[in-house]
């Protein structure tokens, strides 16, 4: 008994010491980083919370991506400890969630500015943030520690739904919808109290679709054709429709603020983009219905409309570059603008060109389910979504430091430039390596060997595939280096800057 008590005391003392130590660490960090939250409105303080978690999840995405990439080369690495399926699941889930955190943060960032009033349900927004963050932590812990369950409903409810991208267990699905609804309420109520705008209208309707579509993926079905049918409703209509429009909204606002583009121009472009995006993207969903058992007419519809999907992305490039050009690139935040330009091109090449390359059914029958999709996925998610979020991190840090100068001649500008170069170069390198692997797989596994298991492994064992996996890991490392530099830069940029940012006027 006494031993137990002393053991318990020991644990308590250790815990207390650990707590003190981590508090001291946190305080040291705070005094080093010198960020002053009094520069931010309450709404923007909520936004930077979302950004902070987004950066942490971005780290998780890269870390688990590196583990999975290593397993392609050394299959015994972490075998039956952290198997490929666990690493890969966390890799893609962390991505989805950090992007959502980034988008929600970005919207909270401009909500007060755009509506001209304070956020209505700030307290609710803060609660939702902590609930969301807590839920994500719990889900990841279960992924890591429990991993799998028996073939029962309870496994799908509490461990893992086992469906790519939306693996989160059912209880978390319910939570996600609740959090998005709170977010939606905040957006609508704040615009209603303040003033509406074209941007506000598009944002509101887009969020209705975003929350509503998620529900389509929350059901279990024995019939895998039906299940994958609805599953794509969520994945495709999120990523290739509602997310793209959300980014269009965020982009529209940031072009006004960064470059001083006139609202009328920005909003007209936004409507054009919505028309083109939904006009091609909604029925472009058909390119996921080629081979899952669905009727043949999807080959025509999916092929045609998804071939149109790059058009709005071209429009977005024209829009961004034209605006930047007419304003002679004069802007108050060079890193943010650079990332926005990276977004325009990354979105066009990653989502547009790379998607188009294998979207026609005549080609897709050979590329479907090969590293082609991974190649497209890497460049598209990074180009379209990671970039815009990073641009907002830079916008946020500038205000967090008190609207300091972040134009030409900032100190240590090499950091943001090298972070930009390493991240973009790293992702592009992975994309090319995976593309080569995908070509090789389409040819050897699919065309020649006829997609049997033997054919699959013949392609996997081929030196050109193996080399490609080596290069992918190398460029993954480059991406990681870029990420480290990015975080360092975000924490230090503008720290000893005394000049204020120039005022950007609408013109």
């Amino acid at each position, binding site marked *: 008994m006494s031993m137990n008590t002393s053991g318990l005391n020991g644990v308590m003392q250790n815990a207390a010491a650990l707590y003190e130590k981590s508090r001291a660490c946190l305080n040291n960090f705070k005094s080093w980083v010198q960020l002053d939250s009094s520069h931010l409105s309450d709404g923007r303080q909520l936004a930077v919370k979302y950004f902070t978690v987004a950066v942490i999840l971005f780290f998780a995405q890269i870390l688990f991506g590196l583990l999975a990439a290593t397993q392609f080369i050394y299959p015994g690495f972490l075998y039956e400890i952290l198997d490929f399926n666990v690493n890969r699941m966390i890799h893609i889930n962390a991505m989805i969630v950090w992007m959502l955190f980034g988008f929600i943060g970005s919207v909270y960032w401009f909500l007060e500015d755009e509506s001209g009033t304070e956020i209505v349900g700030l307290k609710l927004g803060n609660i939702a943030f902590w609930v969301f963050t807590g839920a994500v932590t719990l889900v990841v812990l279960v992924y890591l520690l429990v991993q799998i369950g028996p073939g029962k409903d309870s496994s799908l409810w509490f461990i893992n739904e086992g469906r790519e991208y939306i693996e989160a267990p059912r209880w978390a699905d319910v939570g996600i919808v609740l959090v998005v609804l709170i977010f939606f309420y905040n957006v609508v109520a704040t615009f209603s109290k303040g003033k509406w705008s074209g941007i506000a209208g598009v944002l509101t309707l887009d969020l209705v679709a975003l929350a509503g579509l998620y529900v389509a993926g929350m059901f279990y079905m024995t019939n895998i054709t039906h299940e994958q049918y609805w599953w794509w409703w969520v994945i495709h209509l999120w990523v290739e429709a509602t997310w793209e429009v959300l980014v269009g909204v965020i982009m529209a606002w940031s072009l006004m603020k960064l470059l001083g583009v006139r609202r009328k121009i920005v909003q007209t472009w936004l409507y054009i983009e919505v028309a083109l995006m939904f006009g091609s993207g909604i029925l472009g969903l058909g390119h996921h219905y080629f081979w899952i058992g669905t009727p043949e007419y999807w080959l025509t519809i999916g092929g045609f409309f998804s071939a149109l999907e790059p058009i709005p992305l071209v429009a977005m490039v024209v829009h961004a570059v034209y605006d930047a050009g007419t304003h002679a690139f004069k802007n108050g935040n060079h890193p943010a603008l650079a990332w926005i330009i990276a977004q325009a091109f990354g979105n066009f090449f990653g989502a547009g060109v790379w998607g188009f390359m294998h979207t026609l059914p005549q080609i897709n029958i050979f590329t479907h389910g090969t590293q082609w999709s991974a190649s497209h996925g890497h460049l598209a998610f990074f180009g379209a979504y990671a970039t815009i979020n990073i641009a907002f991190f830079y916008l946020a840090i500038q205000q967090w430091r008190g609207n300091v100068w972040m134009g030409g001649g900032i100190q240590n500008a090499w950091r943001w430039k090298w972070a930009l170069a390493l991240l973009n170069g790293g992702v592009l390198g992975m994309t090319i390596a995976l593309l080569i692997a995908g070509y090789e797989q389409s040819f050897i596994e699919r065309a020649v060997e006829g997609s049997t298991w033997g054919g699959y492994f013949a392609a*996997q064992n081929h030196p050109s595939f193996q080399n490609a996996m080596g290069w992918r890991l190398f460029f993954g490392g480059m991406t990681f280096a870029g990420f480290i530099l990015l975080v360092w830069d975000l924490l230090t940029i503008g720290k000893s800057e005394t000049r204020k940012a120039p005022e950007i006027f609408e013109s």
Partner: protein
Amino acid sequence: MNETPLWASESFWKKTAIWVTAGSFLILVVLTMDSLSKTSAGSKRVPAYTVINKKIDYQYNKELHKSMPVIGENEFLFGKEYTEDEARQLVDLGKKTTQAKNCMNCHTLLGNGAYYAPDLTKAWLDKGWISREMREDMMVKFLMDPENNARTFGSNRKMPNLDITEQEARGIIAFLKWMSSIDTNGFPYNFKTIEAEE
């Protein structure tokens, strides 16, 4: 003089955006209802679960220029003929197990998933199971103890032990057999089944 032409006006594009979105979505809803009815279990494209009682093959159809599932005479799974209800329950257990074991983050199903392990769409028909006589037994053993029955094809990639029970393994096999009978518009192309003559 400086009036904005219609094609460059904000209100024109706003209306266009609304109509295009609403129109596309409406078409999608109609197509969705049609597709779901044409792919319910028991339809021409997606056979009933009792198809697990039959011999299934996947053969190249010269007229259609693609491979099509071919459903043949009786070929019971584990030597038993399943009723409609039993077949559905067994396939359901298998499907649920593939989700609970997170198969999709290594394998692809109907070509969707991860690319670390082979596609499962026609796994039931794969030549890797050597012969029809050995197939069921090999599959059960492999699923329950993949480490000691590893099928690495010289890749050193081994499926981990996922604590699959015998009943779950049988469910997975029933699910795979049923899935191999779905008409996937000729995907995968050029696939030669365990039934094919060399």
